[in-house]
């Protein structure tokens, strides 16, 4: 989780990713950010997030994204 928070914080230093759960709904993350996150996650966790998982519910909070990564890790 710490590694993910670091990736997100590098992208938006001014956002508290530990608590924020409206990252997409409040337009804090846009499509460019999401692609950058997926690319960084692939690098750091060796997990591929495919397009079908790009849904607001999976990117609205660091916790939701982390859960998705874990789910994909288990599947792989």
């Amino acid at each position, binding site marked *: 989780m710490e590694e993910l928070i670091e990736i997100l914080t590098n992208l938006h230093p001014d956002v508290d990713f530990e608590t924020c759960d409206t990252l997409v709904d409040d337009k804090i993350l846009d499509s460019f950010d999401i692609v950058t996150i997926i690319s960084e996650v692939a690098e750091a966790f060796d997990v591929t997030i495919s*397009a079908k998982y*790009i849904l607001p519910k999976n990117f609205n909070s660091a916790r939701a994204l982390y859960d998705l990564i874990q789910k994909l890790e288990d599947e792989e």
Partner: protein
Amino acid sequence: MLFTSYEFLGFLLLLFVCYYTVPKKFQWMLLLLFSYVFYFLANPYYLIYISVTTVSVYYLGFKIEEQAEKQKAYLAAHKGTLGKEEKKAYKERVKKRQTGLFLAALILNLGILAVLKYTNFVIANVNGMLHAFGSGHTIVFVDLLLPMGISFYTFQAVGYLIDVYRGTVPAEKNLFRFALFVSFFPQLVQGPISRFHDLSQTLYEEHEFAWSRFSMGLQRILWGYFKKLVIADRMLIGVNEIIRNPDDYTGAYVFAGMMFYALELYADFTGGIDITIGTAQCLGIRVTENFNRPYFSKSIKEYWRRWHITMGTWFTDYIFYPISISGPMLKISKVSRKYLGNCIGKRVPVYLSSFAVWLATGIWHGASWNFIVWGLGNWAVIMISQELEPLYRRFHAHFHVEDKIGFRIFQIVRTVLLMSCLRTFDCYRDVPLTFRMFGTMFTARNWNILWDGSLLGLGLQLTDYLVLLAGTVLIFAVSMLQRSGSVREKIEAKPYPVRFAVWYGLFLIVLLMGVYGIGYDASQFIYNQF
């Protein structure tokens, strides 16, 4: 049949009567019948193309899901007996079959769109190259029928296909229900590009007549007619005069034309969408909103989140994401990070994918270099502003102007001007002429035409300008009121005399101030040609 024709109003009246008279379980079938009649009346041959798209996407989508169901059943039947590797190999085989079906449907439907829309564009460019190389050969242009709204219904069908392939929506089992999704007539002309998951929620439901919903729909239709007939079609007269006579109208006239076109396009496109959504609302069907007060955007990126929303999200979900997170693109990202550094390297996939998206957006808008340059112009502006983001952050940290009303107005005006500049490519007949006309604005010495009465020579009288001014103020006021919710609901809460005065007044304005006249034919919606 134009939305602005008397035939359309008669068509709607007949539909509404039948829709709320037939047994409710037949309502969606009636809608399908009316949608096909609507398309048939436009041109009987159009039905061939929309039927091919409907049947092919329906059948192949169905087969794709069948593969997924077979896989599920097979894995359940062999639970505990298959090893991890065997399971993986089986899943890969199924995925391969699904991909084959998916690609067949994709190539067929995008192929039809490409051939019908772009053949003559390709021929024109090949002829241009032959001429440049001194060859006397020319290829003859072909006379192809371009079905109305083909880009809209093809994209809608392809979006459904991708969703089924991804497994995010179940395939529709009933061909006729699917045919209605593709051909639903109010959005056939100029969108919005609906998603199956959204539209299907209310499209097939049984709808009881409810006066409050029906009247809300009628009010929205009326507001759409106001924008189209009173504003857009009036403004069109001035725009056409300027852009069709480029030698006569240079410099400040180009600027005036640019701003006139910004108003015309907004009133035309949003007016058409109001008629679409209002018609659907009268039928009890919810269609996705396509605009969110776009001229209040503070950046081009934001503008594209608020203008033609369904097209933007379509390109993002079905082109931008799949390209930017594809295996090859992640490899490019890795290599570029290695050689260009982490900071620049990680942005490479975003920039390359955005390039593809904006190229596709330009091509989608029309078969001409104007639209391609327009698309890539948008891409360049967005990328530049993306690169300047750290600079903006430093600027705001230093000057604290972000929340100042004056600065926000500056950002809004800047965005409108930038978008208007890019849209000049919509207007003039070719790219070199557009650049030439754009350039004349910077060498112009005729800015006095903006106030010395010269604009009255564009086919518009003083009364026309007064109507346009009043109409623009009204649209602006409504947009401001929309910030706190639906304006129609606010009016609904007023006493009856106020409501009557508002809607009857608007009706009279459309009737008396719409651009009609003997022999006048309301113009086609701009987005109809897509």
